[in-house]
């Protein structure tokens, strides 16, 4: 199957400011791709290039198998801009009807259903909507025509936690129906639960692309056991995957790589009164991962 997005050496300079340099990226059909990076990394630049809002300085990009200059391909894409501007007296409902019409027609029921899910107000003049409510209108217009490919630039910004959850559920539904999503964010935590793969950009360069599943395997987990009586250190030494072991009286702390099986079996020989296992912090792994493997690359790019 052809890639949904393929870029080759994609580069954008704004005058002599670098926006993005030599991006080689492939987004596969049916995946949710999380696109991460700090402020000014080049996420929005990449997205605008994919949508032909701006033109590359060098390199190539194809979307859904065609050049993004071909306007027809944009009917198959849903786009939420990072800096969404909605203004004026026009009501969100009328604006959505207009956008839907240009994209080939969207039923009113569909718009209403999405509005209800996100608790969006479609009857107020758009200029008076709060930031979060504007963002909801932006999400509705991106999802409403059921596009094959959704490009969402910082979709959760301004949304309260409940709406964020609803939004993530919508992304999962899109994924379940075999469609593709590219979403950008500053933090892994926001995208890790829905993404299949994540890419990190820094200072205009792609420094890592990783499978979330593979990342989870590499996850380092902090574990604590509390027993009813002091335990001997030897009972926990040399267990597979156990590192940074600390035994203090009746408590044992360590980090584990991969499976906790050996540790749990060793602990089961004593009486456990309390146990703590912190969620693996992918963010940390990810950052260490690319500071080790891609670090020199990232630095060379600065």
């Amino acid at each position: 199957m052809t890639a949904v997005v393929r870029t080759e050496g994609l580069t954008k300079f704004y005058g002599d400011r670098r926006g993005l340099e030599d991006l080689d990226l492939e987004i596969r059909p049916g995946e949710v791709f999380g696109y991460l990076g700090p402020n000014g990394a080049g996420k929005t630049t990449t997205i605008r290039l994919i949508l032909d809002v701006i033109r590359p300085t060098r390199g190539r990009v194809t979307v859904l198998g065609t050049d993004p200059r071909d306007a027809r391909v944009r009917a198959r894409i849903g786009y939420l801009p990072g800096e969404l501007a909605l203004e004026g007296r026009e009501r969100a409902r009328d604006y959505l009807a207009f956008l839907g019409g240009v994209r080939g027609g969207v039923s009113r029921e569909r718009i209403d259903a999405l509005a209800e899910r996100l608790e969006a107000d479609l009857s107020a003049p758009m200029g008076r909507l709060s930031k979060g409510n504007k963002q909801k209108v932006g999400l509705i217009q991106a999802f409403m025509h059921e596009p094959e490919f959704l490009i969402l630039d910082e979709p959760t910004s301004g949304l309260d936690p409940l709406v964020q959850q609803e939004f993530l559920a919508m992304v999962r539904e899109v994924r379940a129906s075999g469609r593709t999503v590219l979403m950008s964010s500053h933090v892994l935590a926001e995208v890790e639960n829905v993404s299949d793969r994540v890419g990190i950009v820094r200072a205009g360069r792609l420094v890592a692309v990783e499978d979330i599943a593979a990342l989870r395997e590499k996850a380092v987990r902090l574990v604590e056991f509390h027993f009813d009586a002091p335990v001997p250190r030897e009972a926990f030494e040399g267990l597979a995957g156990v590192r940074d072991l600390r035994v203090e009286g009746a408590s044992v702390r360590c980090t584990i790589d991969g499976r906790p099986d050996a540790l749990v079996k060793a602990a089961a020989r004593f009486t456990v009164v309390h146990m703590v296992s912190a969620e693996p912090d992918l963010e940390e792994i990810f950052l260490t991962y690319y500071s080790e493997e891609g670090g020199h690359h990232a630095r060379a790019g600065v």
Partner: protein
Amino acid sequence: MPVLVSKSLRDYRRSLVGWTVGITAFFALYLSFYPSITKDPELYGRAALAKFPGAMRDLMGGLEDFTSGVGYLHSLVYQLFGPMLFVVCAAILGNRALAQPEESGTLELTVTLPVDRRRLVFERFAALALGLLGLAVVTFLAVWALSSAVDMNVAFDRILAGHTGILLLSLLFGTLALAVGAATGRRGIAMAVVGVVAVGGYVVESMGRNVDAISWLRWISPFHYYLDGRPLYQGFPTGDYLVLAGATVVLLLTAILAFDRRDVGV
């Protein structure tokens, strides 16, 4: 009607209604003075007008006669105020086509619609042209009705000729604003260009008649192709109007090519 055209017209509706009411009221006010002026030829006749300084008379389009219907209508509506009001309205609408939504950020979503950029510019132009046409039709009917009501004795087709000129002139300036906006994305620049060309063009055309040093510049002033043929006195100056229309087409093509090749919103 293409959906982008109707959408733009809906966006322009309030401002178009405002301009139509305003310009109609302005014309009506001036035309309503006409009967009292004809009653007092001494005060407003040729001799009286000759007392004004020459340069000022030139700027006002000669001020040859006020007391005939056609002279009054030309001097007060078709010489300066009518065209200028239309030009300002056209420039504002021309800016709303691209530059203003680009500056506010709303154009970003529009250019990601499945509409070719060239078509987007063309449809925004079509909306501008239709909006100005609506404004021209309503104000034309108002001038014609009022001029008959106060017995100005100006023929229907002469008023039509004058009004057509105003429409073409304003469409040219609206397209100029649209084109500068299409090329630069900055409405400040577009407004400045329209302002300089409109004021400069008017001064050059009106003063240039009697000042040889600048008279050659009249050929590049858009106002030349409206005022020189004296449409209210002599009917349609067809060749001149074709120049205005041709210049508009050139500007439109420039706008389409410029917008098609550049980055939006940077």
